């Protein structure tokens, strides 16, 4: 019985402690697990520069983040996808004025084994391969070898983006669904017939594989995702913006953090984490969102 009392006491103490020490003005960021590593790194740096500021970052997926923003439980929602119409409607019903800020660009690279002779493809060809229509490498100028597909789980933002931009249709049901980028890289290294897509940060230093140059249409210029300028200018077709959603024109702590993210210091962290700085078109877009 005494032990029980002790347990109860501990609980009661932690309860009271908790309410008294609750920090007001702590920034709540929730959402996509794709963005979380980047935003966490940004906040780490930000909190070092601005002692006394606190940012809480939690994942759980874009859906969780957006739901929290709609319910007023988060200041910023990370989303690797765009908000759905239904969500925007729910938000305005709750009096939430949704605004979108782009904090980085993500270039998706298409990779094949280093022993594969194919090194350039059009978006259409890549789409047909992942839709399961092209099933042999010889159809795209490679060896006579059946293609093995590697992709991500459907809960990853990468999965959705690649589908919407490259496939414009559904993935072949026989695609291997890997848990993470690194697993795709490892699989492609070992599989001569493999093709996969991963964030460009994972292939910068990788050996034993080829990063495919991609063109928007046949005959068009082929660009490499490893070339930062091509990604920023939009010449590389498989680049997507990474978003944060806010409620209304940002003020105070929210504004301070977003300003930091968009500053040169913030953008250099973006590059360090394997993403790309925001191109000019989005710089203007952000200014408008932030009411400047």
């Amino acid at each position, binding site marked *: 019985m005494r032990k029980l009392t002790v*347990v*109860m006491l501990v609980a009661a103490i932690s309860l009271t402690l*908790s309410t008294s020490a609750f920090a007001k003005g702590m920034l709540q960021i929730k959402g996509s697990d794709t963005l*979380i590593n980047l935003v966490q790194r940004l906040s*780490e740096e930000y909190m070092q520069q601005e002692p006394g500021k606190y940012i809480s*970052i939690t*994942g*759980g997926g874009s859906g969780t983040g957006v739901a929290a923003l709609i319910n007023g439980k988060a200041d910023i929602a990370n989303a690797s996808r765009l908000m759905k119409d239904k969500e925007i409607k729910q938000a305005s019903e709750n009096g939430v004025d949704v605004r979108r800020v782009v904090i980085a660009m993500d270039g998706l690279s298409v990779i094949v084994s280093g022993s594969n002779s194919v090194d350039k493809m059009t978006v259409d060809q890549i789409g047909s391969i992942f839709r399961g229509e092209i099933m042999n490498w010889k159809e795209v100028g490679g060896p006579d070898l059946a293609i093995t597909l590697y992709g991500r789980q459907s809960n990853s933002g990468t999965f959705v983006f690649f589908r919407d931009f490259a496939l414009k249709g559904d993935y072949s049901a026989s695609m291997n669904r890997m848990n993470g980028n690194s697993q795709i890289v490892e699989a492609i290294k070992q599989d001569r017939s493999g093709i996969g897509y991963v964030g460009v940060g994972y292939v910068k230093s990788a050996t034993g594989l080829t990063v495919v140059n991609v063109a928007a249409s046949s005959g068009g210029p082929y660009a490499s995702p490893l070339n930062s300028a091509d990604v920023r200018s939009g010449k590389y077709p498989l680049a997507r913006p990474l978003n944060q959603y806010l409620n209304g024109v940002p003020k105070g702590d929210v504004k301070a953090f977003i300003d930091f993210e968009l500053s040169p210091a913030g953008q250099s962290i973006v590059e360090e984490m394997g993403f790309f700085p925001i191109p000019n078109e989005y710089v203007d877009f952000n200014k408008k969102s932030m009411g400047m």
Partner: protein
Amino acid sequence: MKKNKIQEILGFNILRLCTGFVLLFLIIIFWDIATKGIGSVNWEFLTAAPSKGMTEGGIFPAIVGTFLVTVITAVLAIPLGMACAIYLNEYAKDGTLIRLIRMSIRNLSGVPSIVYGLFGVVLFVQLIKIDTSILAAGLTLGLMTLPWTITASEEALKSVPKSYREGSLALGATKWQTIRTNVLPYSIPGMLTGTILGLARAAGETAPILFTGAAFFLPFLPKSLSDQFMALPYHLYIMSTQHHDIARVRPLAYGTALVLVSLVFCMNFIAIVLRYKLRKVRLE
């Protein structure tokens, strides 16, 4: 006759082999985690927060988070479990109601943990609106632990001889007085043993907290029970599947696994030692 003897030796060796397999599984689990995890576990790992995009630093917030959630679990499951066991063993008489309660307990212990997670999302997060938090996750785990604590508590109550109760009742004490003075003092240690085992299982669970409050990353400790939290099992999950550089953080994942397994086994060990000591005391 000889043929029978050979058959018996052969058969028994097959049974030994089966047991050997079970032990082998256990040894592999321990050996792999201990040898590969020990290199990452040091004072800093246990007391620091993750840093540099979770590629460095420690797991302190996850340890604290798991502790806090387990406290909430205990606060819900222990008193409720004990009370339910007391009702079943001391008050209830055979009947439809008792059969219904017993059926519920047995079925609850078979409900998949992810279903408890869904239940927690709807009940605590959506309906009661305590949001994804330590409280929501702890309560969800508490409900999941309930059938185990009830079963364990009832066993402890059953082990108290009937004569203890009859003596007290014969002297004119009421039922509650009898339970309080002649039954509980002898069964509380046994109840605690069982409930520690239940809590150890709850502390290692991941599925029920996935959507009720576990956080990917928090740079500091939770400040209230309505905050989200990092938890050891969830941390191990993200470090081995969701992190952006799984290969690089593998040692940290092994370290986390070692700490988690050690924690759960310490709790089990305490429970087993308690049980052993109790049995000795009773025999004397």
